[in-house]
């Protein structure tokens, strides 16, 4: 089991944003998390990645309890993520953004960085190589020197995924990767996500509104509404579930 949440619950004051979430994600799967806006999907991500500490329940990653750990140590343990509203390092170049992702494996200190110790130089060379590899994989290699925020929207999304991959995760969480993309771009993105999964031996959990994307690439999905898991199953099962139709696909 790659990821498991056991009764994970998040409360803010009186509001329960996510209640009793029980996710199970197996190695190599692509699993979707869907639901109307405000249903608690991003909060679920924030609990898994350590931005919030769950009020109740547990998050288990590859058999280890990671509940309440700091976000950076969870990344170190092997979970990387992207954000709903792209959060790139705005003053840095495309390459530098990816290099920040690589750094979690180098663990640089200020001292070896300044002195440029042999170990530092070796890590630095490897990181540059890996970063360029990732950028060619995601089709951004030519833009390596550009300021990250000067890229068009779709490419910024890809860069965010590349940056996440740079930390060499086992599990990748994508928060609305297709947001702001037209249907054609969404289809390309689906293929890209599949390719990335195979190439880097990843497990993927994603939040998405584009039904076409979710239904197309997920083997299973969970549906949240008001923080409550109202359904889970294969895309076909979800599509036929009357509760899902009522909550998500719109009222008649």
């Amino acid at each position, binding site marked *: 089991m790659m990821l498991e949440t056991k009764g994970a619950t998040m409360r803010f004051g009186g509001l329960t944003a996510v209640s009793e979430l029980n996710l199970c994600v197996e190695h190599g799967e692509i699993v979707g998390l869907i639901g109307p806006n405000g249903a608690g999907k991003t909060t679920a991500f924030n609990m898994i990645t350590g*931005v919030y500490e769950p009020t109740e329940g547990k998050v288990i990653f590859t058999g280890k309890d990671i509940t309440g750990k700091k976000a950076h140590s969870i990344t170190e343990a092997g979970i990387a993520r992207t954000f709903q509203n792209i959060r790139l390092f705005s003053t840095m170049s495309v390459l530098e953004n990816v290099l920040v992702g690589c750094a979690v494996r180098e663990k640089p200190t200020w001292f070896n960085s300044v002195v440029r110790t042999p170990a530092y130089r070796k890590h630095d060379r490897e990181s540059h190589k890996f970063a360029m590899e990732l950028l060619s994989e995601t089709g951004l290699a030519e833009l390596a020197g550009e300021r990250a925020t000067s890229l068009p929207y779709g490419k910024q999304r890809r860069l965010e995924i590349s940056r996440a991959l740079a930390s060499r995760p086992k599990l990748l969480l994508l928060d609305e990767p297709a947001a702001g993309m037209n249907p054609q771009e969404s289809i390309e993105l689906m293929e890209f996500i599949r390719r990335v999964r195979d190439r880097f031996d990843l497990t993927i959990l994603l939040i998405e509104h584009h039904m076409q994307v979710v239904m197309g690439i997920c083997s299973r999905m969970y549906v949240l509404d008001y923080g409550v898991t109202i359904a889970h199953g294969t895309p076909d099962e979800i599509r036929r579930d009357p509760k899902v139709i009522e909550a998500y696909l719109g009222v008649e």
Partner: protein
Amino acid sequence: MDLATFLQQLANAASLGSLYSLIAIGYTMVYGILRLINFAHGDIFMLGAYFAFYLIASVALPWWVAFLVAIAITSLFGIALERIAYRPLRDSPRISLMISAIGASFLIENLGVVIFGGRPKSFASIPLFDTVVRMGSVQVLSVSLFIPVITILLLVVLLFVVNRTKTGMAMRAVSTDVEAARLMAIDVNKVISYTFGIGSALAAIGGILWTMKYPQLNPLMGIMPGLKCFIAAVIGGIGNISGAVLGGFLLGFIEIMVAAFLPALTGYRDAFSFILLILVLLLKPSGLLGKKQTVKV
């Protein structure tokens, strides 16, 4: 320490706390609306006192007319300050706005040194404020009794303006959500000007009363009270008027009482408020009366 000394100190604490409150309100109102520490607020406090001084000493106005005119001029000055130094930066990072505020503060102080002269000036005595009042064995200056009364009156008026008038409603709306306020056809710039006007007027009143109690004026007199009153506003919960008053009184009391009961620590008096600030920020970052905010990811 006997009861009389204690009561004496209590009266001192109440008037110092009131003065702090008056200045702290200006900080809290401006912060509530612009999310800006108006570093120059302490200097506006200083200007209020100087304007009153010159209107009496040079223009020879009766003291109460001079006070009213000084308050009005200071208020306009505050409005002008926002126009010149803060409005052009409203969409800039908050750090730029704050640097501009620091710059404005130094500019006013140095202009003060140039125009008013660096040597301290002393305020002519006004009998109404200078009478010694005896109650049993306790002796206080009449001004020390006026200060808390005036502060409470002003607070009542201010709370009425903010909670019961249309302008006050617009102020509260702008401080909760500027964009939504624009959608209500509220002239946000005007509301911000009002806020600066009211805050500066209160600072001027504070400055005048301050010099009635400690009758020495110098161009740098606003720095320390300014810093402390910002601290008072933060301790009370910034953006909250009652919080600012609470913070101001708390600070005034602690300062006077620690100096009275632990004279060995008197040298560290100016550090108390900072220590208190850091404690409050670490234990309850939103202040005593403030609301907790969660970060959105």
